């Protein structure tokens, strides 16, 4: 590890470091301690800061401020959007309208898949859309599945593992034509690609701060005005009675700042990331035999590169790279607590072996061409080392 200046972080789809300006904003806001619900000046100050952030975020995605609900995470936002299926109140229940069905895909984040499994246990009819080899759903399959019993279609906008971007506009259109609502988990999309809720015409959209250089523990759910809604967390008037609990003022301020910075930097930054990824991709192709890139060749997040190496196991690759000061992630089961390889890679048709042998390099705003060159220097050696002792190569 002597030849490098610092560990190089290539796991920006997992989470990101704070943007320096977000850090500065948090520091400045540390003394805003008032309860945003209090009427006095301490409360008003906190409330004002929250509403400022709400407006920034709403503007960024083309929504009205009152359509943004702050929650504790992207996972909570997704759970909230799906939880309307459980509500028996009659006020928001889909069951009462005989619409207790939910369509999603096989490549969603576990917070959608696990929640849908739970909903199934509570009587919701579940349908899972297949994806092609690039991770795209087939709109015709969605059309075939839609009936008037379906309540909600939930499709992630950009996949966290392979970066594939779906045509949410078309999906929402199909949903609406059949009287369904449309939700998209846009945690990996907002702040990386242009997202406008008006254009997409979705009813719910999930966002998170920590994927775009904000802090952990703060997310948001866009809920189109007039859409049936049921809170996941009851017991308070906060967020227009849609999410109880005293607001995370610091988190919300930081989220707003992160979005403000994305609005300024996103376009230019994404061009740069795209160039870095292309350099990396060509170098891997040139220097390492028997590889396969995963994800869509063009409709893909600019910073995400997922690649499988025949005969090399992912956790071993990850840990050898870690020893060289390079941090990536893997779709191999061995790296997680579970023993199954990535459900996303299996869904796009990879064999279990290819899935075990995959790594995800997610490039972010702090990465430089020097980082890429260092990875290009080390990766072929690591793959060679792993393959050299492999029974499968």
């Amino acid at each position: 590890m002597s030849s490098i200046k610092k560990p190089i972080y290539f796991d920006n789809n997992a989470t990101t470091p704070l943007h320096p300006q977000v850090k500065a904003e948090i520091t400045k806001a540390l003394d805003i301690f008032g309860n945003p619900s209090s009427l006095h000046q301490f409360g008003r100050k906190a409330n004002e800061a929250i509403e400022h952030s709400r407006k920034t975020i709403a503007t960024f995605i083309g929504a009205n401020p009152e359509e943004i609900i702050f929650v504790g995470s992207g996972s909570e936002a997704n759970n909230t959007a799906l939880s309307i299926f459980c509500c028996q109140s009659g006020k928001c229940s889909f069951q009462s309208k005989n619409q207790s069905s939910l369509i999603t895909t096989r490549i969603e984040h576990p917070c959608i898949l696990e929640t849908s499994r739970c909903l199934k246990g509570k009587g919701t009819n579940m349908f899972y859309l297949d994806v092609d080899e690039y991770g795209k759903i087939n709109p015709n399959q969605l059309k075939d599945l839609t009936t008037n019993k379906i309540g909600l279609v939930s499709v992630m906008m950009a996949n966290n593992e392979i970066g594939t971007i779906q045509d949410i506009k078309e999906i929402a259109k199909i949903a609406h034509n059949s009287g369904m609502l449309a939700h998209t988990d846009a945690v990996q999309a907002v702040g990386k690609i242009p997202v406008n809720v008006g254009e997409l015409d979705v009813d719910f959209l999930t966002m998170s701060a920590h994927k775009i250089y904000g802090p952990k523990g703060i997310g948001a759910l866009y809920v189109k005005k007039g859409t049936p809604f049921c809170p996941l967390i009851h017991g308070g008037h906060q967020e227009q009675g849609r999410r109880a609990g005293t607001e995370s003022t610091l988190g919300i301020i930081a989220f707003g700042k992160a979005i403000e910075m994305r609005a300024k930097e996103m376009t230019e930054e994404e061009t740069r990331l795209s160039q870095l990824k292309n350099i990396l991709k060509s170098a891997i192709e040139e220097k390492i035999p028997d590889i396969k890139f995963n994800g869509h060749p063009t409709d893909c997040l600019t910073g995400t590169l997922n690649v499988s190496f025949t005969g090399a196991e992912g956790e071993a690759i990850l840990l050898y790279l870690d020893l060289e000061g390079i941090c990536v992630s893997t779709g191999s089961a061995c790296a997680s607590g579970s023993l199954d390889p990535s459900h996303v890679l299996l869904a796009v048709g990879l064999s279990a072996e290819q899935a075990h042998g995959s790594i995800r390099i997610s490039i972010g705003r702090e990465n430089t061409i020097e980082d890429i060159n260092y990875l290009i220097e080390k990766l072929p050696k690591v793959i060679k080392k792993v393959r050299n002792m492999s029974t499968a190569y």
Partner: protein
Amino acid sequence: MNDWVYSDKLKEHFTNPKNVLEDEANFAADGKGIVGNIKCGDQMLFAIKVDKDIITDCKWKTYGCASAIASTSILSEMVKGMTLSAAYKVTPKDVAAQLDGLPEHKIHCSVLGDKALRAAIDDYYKRNGQENKIKKDQTKIICQCMNVSDAEIEEAVLEGVRTYLELQEHTKLGTVCGQCKDEALKLLDEYKKKHF
């Protein structure tokens, strides 16, 4: 901050694996064994040289994670100079202990190592007309990935396991590739009927 995810000993064997079988064609092995399944994420091969019932050299190949690589590496060091009968008795626990411990979900990595070694020793016995020394397991391995036998399933039932889920939790059976599910379910039923 911990600068490594597993033990230092494991790191040492992962960083500098000992006795990797690099030139398979020119390693005149007296016995060779391979176990595991790439689909499940682990496969190990052992090749041994034997002189007067003593393992004089031992090389290996592994497709698998850091724990699997380190397990095979340290096992290859452990058995050099051992008699075949002593090497035959090395257990996954011995391997894990030498590595200063393995996390629970990595135990199956060490399980495969000693199985591969025994397969290599069996191969040696076969080549040298000593089949009588091959210890046929009294029991049958049902789950290849986690090395769970029918006897262990029976024991689990006796200890209160009634459902497949409980069996998975208790023995880790069927938690990797899942191919053994049908057979395990059948046995689970059989033992439940037999004992209760």
